């Protein structure tokens, strides 16, 4: 029984969290009711004698004390930090203590990592574990937002327009606007191509996984805003996002976790470095860049999706 439940959850048929997570029933109330509810709560709060005492005396005293302590701590913090800044080495001049490691990165970087962009070589080769944790931070954030804003089963079947019709609001569908649609039809492919260019050139010039992924995520957001969720879901469905993110994170973890099992330095002997400056160069940096970019793009689109039509 447990196994079948697990399998049906795996294929997305049932939702294990359905009864566990708190679902808010007030979400279908109209705006006026919400306001009335709020006013009632406030009135109730003020009427009860205990609460009045809290607001009148204790809270005022608390806030006065709070303001004094806050002002003092702000001034002290800024003062101490400015004093520290005044004793720092001069801005814009070379600082011999910090350039030792940099000299190594710059002198050997191109030779060891095959990337012209030293920053990309640093974050995806020398310090790739850092970036691995970073991608997982993004993934975890997306999961947290999903848990906080997810739709319940009732709302899931309704389209976006129904959701607003229930709330008694005039729904202004931006995807019916000709200007928005036509401009997006020209812009979205250009932004997408630019994002892919930035993503693939991370090892040669400015760019890389984070920026390219964010640009691609922005293109997906514009597409979905201009053509509506019906069309966007056909291209970038939830399932596609989940699988792409899963594959990218697994690939990254496997490529870097490999070190644990072999005790070697990198995968350096298996992937040729290529000539620095070409697109297919930098060994493992390009695949890792693509993995990071996919994670970032689908996370950004997922945030938009959840905030746009989540609960």
């Amino acid at each position, binding site marked *: 029984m447990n196994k079948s439940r697990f399998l049906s959850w795996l294929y997305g048929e049932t939702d294990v969290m359905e009864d566990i997570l708190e679902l808010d029933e007030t979400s279908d109330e109209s705006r006026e009711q*919400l*306001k009335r509810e*709020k006013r009632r*709560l*406030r009135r*109730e*709060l003020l009427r*009860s004698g205990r*609460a009045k005492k*809290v607001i009148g005396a204790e*809270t005022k005293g608390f*806030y006065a004390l709070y*303001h004094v302590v*806050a002002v003092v*701590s*702000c001034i002290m*913090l*800024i003062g101490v*930090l*400015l*004093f520290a*800044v*005044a004793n*720092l080495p*001069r*801005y*814009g001049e070379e600082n011999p203590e*910090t*350039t030792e*490691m*940099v000299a190594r*990165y*710059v*002198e050997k*970087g*191109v030779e060891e990592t095959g990337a*012209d962009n*030293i*920053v990309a070589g*640093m*974050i995806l080769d020398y*310090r790739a574990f850092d970036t691995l944790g*970073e991608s997982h*931070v993004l993934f975890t*954030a*997306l999961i*947290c*937002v999903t848990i*906080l*804003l997810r739709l319940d089963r009732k709302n899931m079947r309704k389209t976006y327009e129904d959701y607003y019709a229930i709330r008694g609001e005039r729904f202004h569908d931006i995807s019916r606007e000709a200007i928005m649609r036509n401009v997006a039809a020209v812009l979205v492919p250009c932004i997408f191509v630019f994002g892919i260019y930035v993503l693939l050139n991370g090892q*040669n*010039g*400015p760019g*890389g996984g*984070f920026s390219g992924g*964010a640009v691609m995520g922005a293109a997906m957001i514009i597409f979905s805003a201009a053509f509506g969720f019906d069309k966007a879901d056909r291209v970038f469905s939830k399932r596609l996002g989940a699988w792409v993110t899963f594959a990218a994170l697994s690939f990254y973890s496997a490529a870097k976790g490999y070190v644990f099992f072999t005790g070697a330095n990198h995968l350096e002997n298996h992937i040729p470095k290529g000539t620095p400056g070409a697109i297919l160069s930098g060994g493992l940096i390009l695949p890792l860049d693509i993995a990071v970019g996919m994670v*970032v793009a689908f*996370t*950004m689109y997922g945030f938009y999706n959840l*905030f746009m039509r989540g609960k």
Partner: protein
Amino acid sequence: MVANLLANYEEAFAIVLFGIGFTMLLFQRNLFKKLIGLNIMDTGTFLFLASMGYIRGRKAPIVVDGVTDPKAYINPVPAGLVLTGIVVSVSVTAIMLALTVRLYRRYHTLQLDEIYEMSKHLTEDR
């Protein structure tokens, strides 16, 4: 000290931005403004880190024509740190906004002191 502060003007501005963000975090009662304050604090820190690595008259750390002399480029380490920091800050912002949505659904207000009083009142009554 003032001369040093003027020479280190970029770090000083970064600290001022950090202070403004911190002040917003402490004094604004609106949760939304607190979030924007947190973002300003973030950018203050990034500015400070990046200005520590900046060296006047040098180029961005991208090797051109095979010049691998460390004297030609600025410090690439802060750029790598800040790059990851910017992306973390947006995911932190997203989680906090989601939490704000949940709080608003419960209390129908964004003012933190009202939320505090209502929560005390509601738990005492139940």
